[in-house]
């Protein structure tokens, strides 16, 4: 099984307190936490895995910066009011571009995304350990999906998915 949870908890699905709970290790006041560090028993996510991400971001920014700099040396700069007007088929632009452009369907879409994306979040860990939790786990997630589908069906019936142009 993948160790998306902790390595020393391979029975990660069982929620029974006697297994999940650390025995008689009371935390004590917060300042006492300072003496201990996180992750000393879990060895997966190390800095080596996410350092490259930083490097990559730095690299991209560097390249972009250099390119922009080079470009600024080469390109002409000759702005005048007409050129600086927004592109609008020759018409003069009037008012804020965003004004009145806000339509509810976009918003509904955003909400749907939030809901479904978050549900996907539950599905991923479940998918990883499905073989271990077996039928019971499957049934539970099935119920979850059914509820999700009810919501989906509701949205459909309600016309939230209709996009009139």
């Amino acid at each position, binding site marked *: 099984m993948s160790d998306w949870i902790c390595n020393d908890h391979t029975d990660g699905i*069982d*929620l029974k*307190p006697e297994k999940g709970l650390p025995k008689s290790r*009371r*935390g*004590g006041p917060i300042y006492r*936490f300072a003496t201990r560090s996180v992750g000393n028993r879990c060895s997966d996510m190390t800095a080596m895995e996410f350092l490259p991400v930083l490097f990559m971001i730095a690299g991209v920014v560097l390249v972009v910066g250099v390119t922009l700099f080079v470009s600024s040396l080469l390109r002409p700069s000759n702005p005048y009011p007409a050129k600086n007007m927004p592109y609008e088929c020759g018409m003069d632009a009037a008012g804020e571009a965003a004004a009145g452009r806000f339509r509810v369907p976009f918003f509904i879409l955003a909400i749907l995304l939030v809901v479904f994306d978050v549900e996907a979040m539950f599905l991923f860990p479940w998918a990883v350990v499905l073989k271990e939790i077996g039928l019971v786990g499957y049934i539970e997630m099935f119920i979850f999906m059914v509820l999700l589908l*009810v919501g989906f069906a509701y949205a459909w*019936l*309600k016309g939230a998915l209709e996009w009139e142009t």
Partner: protein
Amino acid sequence: MTAATLFQSALASLPEIVVITGACILLILGQFVRKGQEHFLVWASVAVVLIAALATLMLASEVRPVYTGMFIADRFAVFFKFIFYLATVLTFLLSRKYADIEGIGSSEYYVLLLFALLGMMIMASATDLLSIYVGLELMVICTYVLTGFLRRERRSNEAALKYVILGAVSTGIFLYGVSLIYGLAGTTQLDGMAAALTGDPLDSGLLLAVVFIVAGLVFKVGAVPFHMWLPDVYEGAPTTITAFMSVGPKAAGFAVILRVFLNPLVAASDVWIILAVIAVVTMALGSFVALVQDNFKRLLAYSSIAHAGFAIFGVAAGGADGIASVMLYLLIYAFTNLGIFAAVIMMRNGDFSGEVIEDYAGFAKSHPGLALLMLLFLFSLAGIPPTAGFFAKFYVLVALVERGFVMLAVIAVLLSAVAAYFYIRIVMVMYMREPKRAFAPALTPLVRATLVVTAAGTIGIGLFPSWFLKLAQDSVFGG
């Protein structure tokens, strides 16, 4: 978790399953209901709740801790669930006509109420901070939407937005406390916490956590210092929802407070001092500010703050009697408050809002029967015998004195004397002023039924409290 335990769990949560299934079915069916057939939704919703109530009764006989210790079906939960059923069913009955008048045609209204009911039921049964949190959020999210259900009304929108934002803040505060508790105890299960937190009560981290959790929960019951949302929300929300919120979610909040604080934490900290202070301040604020209100709904909002304060006195008292007193208080408050809200809702008809107290001037002259019922409810709220409200307060006081908190009891009664003023002021307006205009209350058979039920409860429990008292005492957890 094996298939057998899953089945056991499903069985123990049968009422919840009934409600959620019913709600889902209604959500879909609601899309096919044509205009003018909304009464189908009302009856279907009521039927769902009644079936759930039946299931709850079936399960009332034994204690079943299920879902790996996150959920429990015990008498304590059953008692609270019946308060919720009562509140929800009566809200359904009240809503039918009111929805027509306010132009609420959508089936979502009923479905959301059912989901809110589900959230409250989970709260009553939850024995893990996680399940408490889930139930709590299910409930409040539904009430957020319901508060803003009058989409075209600015007041409703604003109330809902305010509620959402403040509610989310309080949830955040609550969660922060939970995370600290989790850090200290290594578990979120209430029993596990009790086992892990048997150390010194003045642990600064624990105290901080408790303060945060108290703050979060206290918000839901509308106690000081997290009461600011309550008057605005009560005023802005559709009146039926206000009625519902003043009873159901409030009781649910108390169910959680009782479970969380009278189970593991009271032993571990001097939390009752915090609660006592909150109770005193809440009651004082609710009572005094209500004195100057002109809007009936706002007044009832402050009154409900004051009542929350009184119930917190019971929590502060603790012990079996303390818990039972809070439970009984909430039950009685449910009857009384729904009754008075039924009257307010009934007044909303045509262009008449019935929200200003002056609107009721001379009501007794034109509708003596209805005025008498309102009088009954108001005196019950004020705690005058022989109404049930008196017995509710009496029992809380008994619990307080039993634990030796006589000073708190004295403060409680003095403040409730202050609170009595604004109730009798309404009586005064109804009985001692001349009517300014004709009244046409929307008195449908359903509203009548609600009034009858609530009045019967208010006067019945007042005269024969014995059975209900026994019920509450037997339902204290573990019982």
